[in-house]
Every structure is written in C-alpha cells, then in structure tokens.
C-alpha cells in the first residue's frame, strides 16, 4: 500500500490530487478502510474539499462517510481512529500529513440502504413518495409525454399504491400507438391481463383528496386511464430447475383510454419530460476489438418520475446480473450499466424511475431503464426491447414515435 508520491502530477485546475489518482487510491485502499473495525467509516468516495458541487474550484479529496460526526476528543475517548488516521493507516503512512491529497468527512445521518420498490401498502403512503422531483413529473399531464409517472393499478388498488415511468411511445404498421414501460411497472411482473388500464399519474402520486374521490378501481381508471395493456415479455425468475436468462423487462399499452376518461393531448408524445424531443433510435454500441473504443455516444440522460432529468455515463456493457423483483430473482445478460455523471448532484435514478427511456447526447434512444443499486443503474439495450415488443404485439413493424 502506498500514498500518492509527493511529486505525483497534480491537476493544475484544482491544486490537489487528480481525480484519476484518487480513483486509483480508492481502488487500492477502500476495501481495507471499510473492512477495518477500528474506525467508524461506512463509505468512502471522491468529492470536493468544499463538500459542494463537483464543478466548483476546490480540490478533489477522499471523502469518508460516517453516520455521525463527533468531536475529536469524543472520537479519541471511544478508541476509534479518526478518518485522517484511518486513511493514513490504509495508505501505509504513519501521519495523515504525509498523504499527498486532501480528505474530508461527510455525515450521512444513517447507514446506506437500497431503495424500496415504489409499490407500497396504502398505510405507508407519504413515507415513500418523497418530495416532488425538481421537474414535477408526478402529477397529471394533460399533454402526454415521456418521463411522466404511470402505473397499472389492477390487482392492487386501493390497498397498494404504486408508480413507475412512461418511457416512450411506439407506433405499429396499422397506425396504433402504444406507450412503453417495464413489465414490472405496467404488466405487474407477468400477472397483468390484456386490457388492464394504465393510469397517469401513478396512484402513489395522488393526493388524499384524489384518493378519496376515486376510491374504487373503476372510478380511478375512468378518471385517470390513458392506455390499455397490450403485450409484454414475461420475466423468467430463478426456479428449482435452473436459472433462465432474461434480455428485457418491457411492456406496451395501447393509447386507448376508457370511454368516459377525459381526453389527453397526444400532440407532444415525442417530447421527453419538459426537455427536448426524442429524435430517433441509436445504433447498438459496438466496440473496437483491439482498442476497446466504443462507437456511439456513451453520455446519456433520462427523464424519470422520481429524479427528473439526470445525466450519466455508460460505464459497462454486456452486464450479467441478478435483479430483485417482488416475485423473485431474475437473471439478466447483455445489459447496460450507467453511473451518474459528475454534472449530477444525485444518483442517475431512484425508485419510481423504472421505465424511463435512456437517451444519448443526440437525444436518440439507447435503452430502457429497469433497475438500480446504490450507485448504478441498469438498462435494457433499446433494440432487443423493440424487437421483443414487435413479436409480443404480433405486428410487422414497430417504430419509436420521434419528432
């Protein structure tokens, strides 16, 4: 183990260690730091010494996360190593001042936990909805567009409330228009029935008054229905006989509201949230066999019901992983891994963003968001989603609605 060399190259703009150097340090020492029971660090990362936005002028630093910041005297009295001492120890240095970089401690207030899925018993309403997104995509939209909150309330409402995101719209060779989201958002993890009404906004985003006024499924779908479930791709879960692979978590609902439902305007369905338009479908990522250079824009963004507009970077392709659903574990392969870009002050996605369309910097669709962990978002590549839905719908062509 080693600290940064004193004469290691510095980032001229920050007068501290470069981001890459700190990343190397984290890769080498973060495990040891977190595994050491002699400190109270629950996480470690890279931040700004100011603890502010990543684009401010202060130097990058190694940031330690603790549940509660304590005075030095109390830390010493408890026999716990200070963050500075712990970092120095993990680096093989005797003194914190020998480190070639800045450090900082951030109080989290609680341990990190994975987000609960946004399908909750009605009694817990309010505990999970959280504050409105910066772009308020949780409310009723007269003008339908991508990125707004939807759900399939059948089999759950009014006992359980839920919400996910409307990803984008497609049109088949007979001129029928469908909204696209995840199976687990609008097809109830394979339990959906053709013709189920998809509502907007999601039931978790209704106010108490709205819930009281629409206290039955029939009243709810009459007032807020926008589409009817048309097709989905079954999720295959781990079972005693083996572990099948999944490629997509997707479903389509035809824009066909219940007879008495107030009409919605569909003239802006190529628009992503309150931002720009979806302009096409990106080519699948290809990779140079020798250099590993990826052809295509890896800078991506999405509009989702919970976190609104966020930007990220595709950091992994060909991802193989298990994903936790209410009905069990499902194994996926050939997925896209996305991390929030430094432009973001928060994660790329959170619970309730499932179903969001992932757009590249040219606003072409590259994927369909369906899951996340503490620091990564997973998306299905877009082409398998379109191919699978075309087959599931039994249509000849299926094109994304673009501006």
């Amino acid at each position: 183990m080693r600290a940064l060399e004193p004469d290691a190259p510095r980032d001229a703009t920050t007068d501290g260690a470069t981001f890459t150097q700190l990343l190397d340090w984290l890769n080498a020492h973060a495990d040891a730091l977190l595994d050491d029971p002699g400190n109270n660090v629950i996480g470690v990362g890279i931040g700004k010494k100011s603890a502010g936005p990543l684009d401010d002028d202060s130097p990058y630093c190694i940031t330690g996360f603790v549940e509660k910041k304590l005075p030095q005297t109390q830390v010493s009295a408890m026999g716990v190593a200070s963050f500075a001492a712990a970092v120095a120890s993990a680096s093989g240095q005797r003194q914190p001042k020998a480190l070639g970089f800045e450090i900082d401690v951030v109080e989290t207030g609680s341990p990190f936990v994975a987000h609960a899925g946004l399908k909750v018993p009605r009694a817990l309403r309010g505990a999970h909805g959280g504050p409105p997104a910066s772009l308020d995509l949780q409310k009723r939209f007269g003008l339908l567009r991508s990125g707004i909150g939807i759900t399939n309330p059948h089999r759950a409402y009014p006992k359980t409330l839920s919400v996910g995101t409307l990803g984008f719209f497609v049109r088949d060779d007979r001129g029928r228009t469908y909204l696209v989201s995840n199976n687990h958002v609008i097809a109830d993890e394979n339990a959906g029935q053709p013709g189920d009404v998809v509502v907007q906004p999601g039931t978790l985003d209704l106010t108490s008054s709205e819930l009281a006024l629409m206290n039955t499924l029939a009243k709810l779908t009459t007032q807020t229905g926008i589409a009817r479930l048309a097709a989905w791709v079954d999720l295959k879960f781990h079972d005693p006989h083996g572990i099948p692979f999944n490629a997509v978590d997707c479903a389509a609902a035809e824009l066909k509201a219940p007879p008495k439902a107030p009409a919605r305007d569909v003239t802006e369905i190529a628009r992503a949230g309150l931002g720009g338009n979806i302009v096409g479908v990106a080519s699948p990522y290809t990779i140079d066999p020798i250099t590993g250079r990826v052809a295509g824009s890896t800078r991506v963004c999405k509009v989702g019901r919970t976190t609104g507009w966020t930007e990220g970077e595709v950091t992994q392709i060909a991802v193989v992983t298990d994903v936790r659903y209410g009905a069990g574990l499902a194994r996926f392969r050939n997925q896209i891994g996305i991390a929030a870009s430094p432009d973001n002050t928060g994660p790329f996605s959170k619970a309730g963003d499932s179903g969001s369309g992932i757009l590249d910097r040219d606003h072409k669709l590259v994927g369909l968001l369906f899951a996340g962990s503490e620091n990564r978002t997973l998306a299905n590549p877009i082409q398998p989603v379109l191919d699978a839905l075309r087959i599931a719908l039994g249509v000849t062509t299926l094109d994304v609605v673009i501006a």
Partner: protein
Amino acid sequence: MAEAANYLDVQRALQENTAGIIEQIPVSALHLSMPVDGRGARIHASVKAGEKARVPSHVDVELDGRALSIPVEAVADYSEFKAY
C-alpha cells in the same frame, strides 16, 4: 494454448457463454460486465466482501472453435440490483 481475448471476444463471451463463465466463478452472488474504460479487455466481476479470493484470475471459453482466456478483475463491490 488459449488465445488472449480481445474486447469483441469478451462482449460475445458474456452474451453467448454466460452460464459457462458463471460456473467458473464459485461465489454466492455476482455481477459480470465488460468495462469500457480502455484499460484492457477483461471481465469485471463484482462480488461480495469476503468472496474476492474465490474469483479466478481468468476464465476459459470457446468461441467459434477458438479456445480463449479472459482475464477477470474481481472487486468486492457487489450490491444487489432491484427492479424499481
């Protein structure tokens, strides 16, 4: 003698030989992926803390009749993905 795999081989192996690769990594839970950071063709295996030592340094696969060896980079950063 197995050939060294290039990026395209790794991408294809993860899609076409997934079960065979997983069998060679005896851990309780993992994510596999191909990093696109330009630091070499390899499989990134995210595993639980304490299981890193059980990850082999490489896995062997066969693609189009070619025997390939793919380096595996093990990182103890496994965190379960949830559909949300």
